């Protein structure tokens, strides 16, 4: 201690005291650090875009959305006869094509569904999310899902040579983007495979590309539209004696709590991938357009563990 001069010791004290002052001047301001954290989080955290569309169906076809994990979604869909029936035929509401089905969310990534359409068509599908649109740390401009389905026809009157002829399949890649809170669009390259076709000149695989979009009108009501453009269009392919045309549907999605109602007008009487894409035969005019609806009601079967309150 004696080696240290008084001056030096004094300097040390000054230094010590001043560090103390710095320390106390550095009193934490949590408000400030929270604001800074928020700014950082915007860069460092990934914000996944949700609710690109209101429900799992655009109108007839699949949308990018899945049902939530552990949720059962009961869907009842009707497609009526053309509205030109007038008041006498209650604008087509007398006759209806119907599909009843249930969808189930296996986890955050995958869902499956089964259904039956009037006329003995059973269908099943699985849809898997591959990419999710996001901002922040991971920037992904689009969401991408893959949907694969099969239709089994139980129609006894038809002339199927083999049992396998009763099946056809569809595979769709769904690419969607939510541009803002009001506009979302999706593009759906589609291939429909038939195990058997009428003639050798008709291919087994029919390619098409679907377009879908929604415009949010109010918080509860969305205007939706869906159009499938058929890329495979062999000159001698007919359905029920008529040349198929492209299917266009325009409607509204209305949500009320646990329900989503979809009301729409379409030139197709069908709801299955194969049927509405490749078997629509009437052009969009007053003689063909018909009213239809999908009603979805969700039931929580298996709530995620973290949520059980």
């Amino acid at each position, binding site marked *: 201690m004696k080696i240290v001069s008084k001056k030096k010791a004094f300097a040390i004290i000054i230094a010590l005291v001043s560090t103390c002052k710095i320390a106390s001047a550095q009193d934490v301001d949590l408000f400030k650090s929270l604001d800074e954290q928020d700014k950082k989080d915007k860069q460092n955290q990934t914000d996944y875009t949700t*609710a690109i569309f209101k429900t799992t169906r655009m109108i007839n076809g699949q949308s990018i959305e899945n049902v939530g994990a552990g949720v059962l979604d009961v869907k009842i869909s009707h497609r009526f006869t053309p509205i030109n029936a007038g008041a006498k035929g209650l604008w087509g509401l007398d006759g209806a094509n119907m599909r009843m089905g249930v969808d189930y969310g296996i986890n955050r990534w995958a869902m499956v569904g089964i259904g039956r359409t009037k006329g003995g068509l059973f269908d099943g599908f699985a849809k898997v999310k591959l990419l999710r649109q996001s901002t922040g740390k991971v920037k992904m401009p689009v969401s991408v899902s893959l949907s694969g389905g099969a239709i089994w026809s139980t129609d006894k009157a038809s002339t199927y040579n083999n049992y396998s002829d009763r099946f056809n399949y569809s595979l769709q890649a769904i690419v969607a983007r939510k541009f803002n809170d009001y506009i979302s669009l999706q593009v759906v390259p589609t291939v429909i495979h038939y195990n058997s076709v009428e003639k050798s000149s008709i291919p087994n695989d029919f390619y098409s590309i679907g377009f879908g979009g929604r415009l949010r009108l109010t918080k509860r009501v969305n205007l939706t539209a869906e159009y499938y453009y058929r890329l495979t269009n062999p000159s001698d392919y007919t359905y029920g004696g008529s040349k198929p045309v492209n299917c266009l549907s325009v409607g509204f999605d209305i949500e009320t709590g646990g329900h989503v109602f979809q009301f729409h007008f379409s030139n197709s009487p069908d709801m299955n991938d194969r049927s509405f894409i490749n078997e629509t035969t009437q052009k969009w005019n007053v003689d063909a357009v018909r009213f239809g609806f999908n009603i979805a009601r969700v039931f929580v079967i298996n709530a995620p563990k973290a949520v059980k309150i």
Partner: protein
Amino acid sequence: MKKIILIASFSALIGTSAMSQKVYQTKTGQISFDATGTCAEPIKATNNQVDSKFVDKTGQIVFSVLIKGFKFPNALMEDHFNENYMESSKFPKADFKGFITNISSVNFAKDGTYDATAKGNLTIDGKSKEITVPGTITIEKGKPTIKASLNIPLKEFIHGSYIGSQILDVAKTTVVCKYE
């Protein structure tokens, strides 16, 4: 010389006491709410990733809550919550910035439960409002746990005019945060 040493040690002591201000924090706090009105399905959700910090000396306290972190049993309800009510793409977080007004009555060295009141600004959906929340601070082995419940008046925060009888006007909210 002895004097100098004395002063030095004294100033060092002051220094340590100034620096002993401690920031308690958690990133796994829990906030849940229940706004079930006449609706058949329960409207409740839990967020287990609440970010909160507080200072033992000043009582300054902050909570930061990611809106998309609220998990509902029904995923469709969660979508509606985010898109229609909370506008979470525009306002991803809710926060509270305030002070525990009677922090001096809490003895962090002694186990026990102390009444505490927090006063500050609650910001939800881009709207701020000053609130006072009574709660408790429990000290267990030097680690504090804050518990509080409050009724958040939804109409004063949330956009949209259609909060009907199916949803209560107030969300009964509970906060449980264990700090390190």
